[in-house]
């Protein structure tokens, strides 16, 4: 058998060659790795950031919703304590009134932000001199306004004439529902403290409708979609809820014509979960009538926020009144 022996001179040559190569590698700059095309890396990272951003936005919106709901409930507690017997069912225009000193009429002391009067353009300090054509000439003009508003239905147009800086101006205000009786309270055995304003349906909104996006039609958008009025569905609720699709234009909800995204939200908020309504929409330039149902049983129940401090209800068994978000 032939034997192989390691020649020492070869070993020395090998070591020297390896050392030289290593030195060359260290001395010379490492060859730059081939550039990775952004298209192969960035989408993943961007998608991840997009997902995180979307999640953060959802948390922000949920927090905002919680702040609104809890604040509203807290105000209900205060109202309950301070004014337990509220005249229910009348429409409101979103102003605080006070008697005017040295002038005939009711002075606007405060305008509710985002309220009907604010939307119409009524300012603090305006002197209301007539409502729906009736001049305010009673001894108590502010009380006269309250009497007139008793006959006004929610969503009705109210003509308001004001005096501002010595000039008379006319405004049209769309009334909104005022405080009303919470139906479930009537079912409770102990009604020792009377009635109180109910929590509005806005806080019963939940599930797929939360993610819907709407846009008020501008003249240009309207010409594109073939309508001069209505609200565009930018993003329809997922899972086919209320049977809307992206690109639909909502013309009416049970005959009520939404004039803006906020108005459409208010109209939808007036329905209870499970309640049915008819949508008149434009879809691909065709007008359709769609029967829809407000989704229910999609959210979580907030029993802990149902009961109010100091109220007799705390001692009662929970009723069927639940807040579903």
């Amino acid at each position, binding site marked *: 058998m032939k034997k192989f022996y390691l020649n020492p001179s070869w070993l020395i040559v090998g070591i020297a060659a390896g050392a030289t190569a290593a030195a060359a590698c260290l001395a010379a700059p490492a060859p730059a790795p081939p550039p990775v095309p952004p298209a192969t890396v960035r989408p993943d990272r961007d998608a991840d950031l997009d997902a995180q951003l979307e999640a953060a936005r959802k948390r922000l919106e949920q927090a905002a*919703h919680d702040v*609104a709901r809890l604040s509203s409930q807290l105000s209900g507690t205060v109202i309950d304590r301070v004014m337990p017997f509220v005249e229910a069912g009348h429409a409101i225009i979103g102003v605080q009134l006070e008697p005017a000193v040295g002038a005939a009429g009711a002075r606007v002391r405060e305008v509710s*932000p985002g309220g009907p009067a604010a939307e119409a353009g009524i300012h603090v300090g305006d002197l209301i001199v007539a409502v729906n054509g009736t001049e305010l000439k009673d001894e108590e003009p502010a009380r006269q306004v309250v009497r007139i508003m008793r006959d006004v239905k929610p969503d009705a147009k109210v003509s308001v004439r004001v005096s501002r800086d010595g000039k008379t101006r006319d405004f049209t205000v769309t009334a909104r529902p005022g405080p009303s009786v919470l139906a479930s309270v009537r079912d409770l055995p102990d009604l020792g403290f009377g009635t109180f304003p109910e929590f509005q349906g*806005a806080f019963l909104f939940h599930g797929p409708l939360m993610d819907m996006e709407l846009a008020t039609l501008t003249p240009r958008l309207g010409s594109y979609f073939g309508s001069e009025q209505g609200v565009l569905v930018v993003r329809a609720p997922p899972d086919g809820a209320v049977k809307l699709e992206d690109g639909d234009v909502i013309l009416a909800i049970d005959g009520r014509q939404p004039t803006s995204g*906020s108005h459409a939200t208010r109209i939808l908020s007036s329905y209870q979960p499970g309640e049915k309504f008819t949508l008149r929409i434009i879809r691909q330039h065709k007008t359709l009538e769609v029967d829809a149902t407000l989704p229910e049983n999609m959210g979580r129940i907030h029993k802990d926020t149902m009961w109010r401090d100091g109220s007799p209800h705390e001692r009662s068994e929970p009723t069927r009144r639940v807040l579903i978000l």
Partner: protein
Amino acid sequence: MHPDLDQQRSLARRLREMPDEAAQPYDWSEFQRRSGTRTRPGPGLAGARALAAATVLALGVVAVWTRLGGWSPTPPRPASVAAARLAPEATQPLAAHTAAMEHWLASLPSEPAVVHVGTRAAVTGLEDRIAQVDDLLSAARLDQAQPARLLALQQARTRLVGALVQVRYAETLADESR
């Protein structure tokens, strides 16, 4: 002899030769008492500190108010004047705070170009609630309700307006991140 050693001895000798009258005139407890007297502020100094704290607090309030757009060329609103008649010490800061918040709200567009229904429902719910409280405040004044009741309603309104500011701020942030 080494001069340094001579100096030390001389110093020690001088110390030993000092008269007894030069010793500390009071003991440790007296020192503590005097020290306490020195560090305890007099009535004038305490007042000055309270004044300084109040000034800092007031500057903070003014800064926050200014941040919210409280400095406005518009004259004070009649609401503040009327509220002052009710209970000046309670309602004046309340009215000023609410006015600053409403000033900021009024500077916003009525709604974003694209309305996210979930957040908008929170906004409209609060707006409607404030309108209801305003209606109740009108009724309470007409019925000459007790000042405490009016104040409670006014405080509830201020809280609602504060919540509306927060929700609209969140809505603006979410809208801009889309």
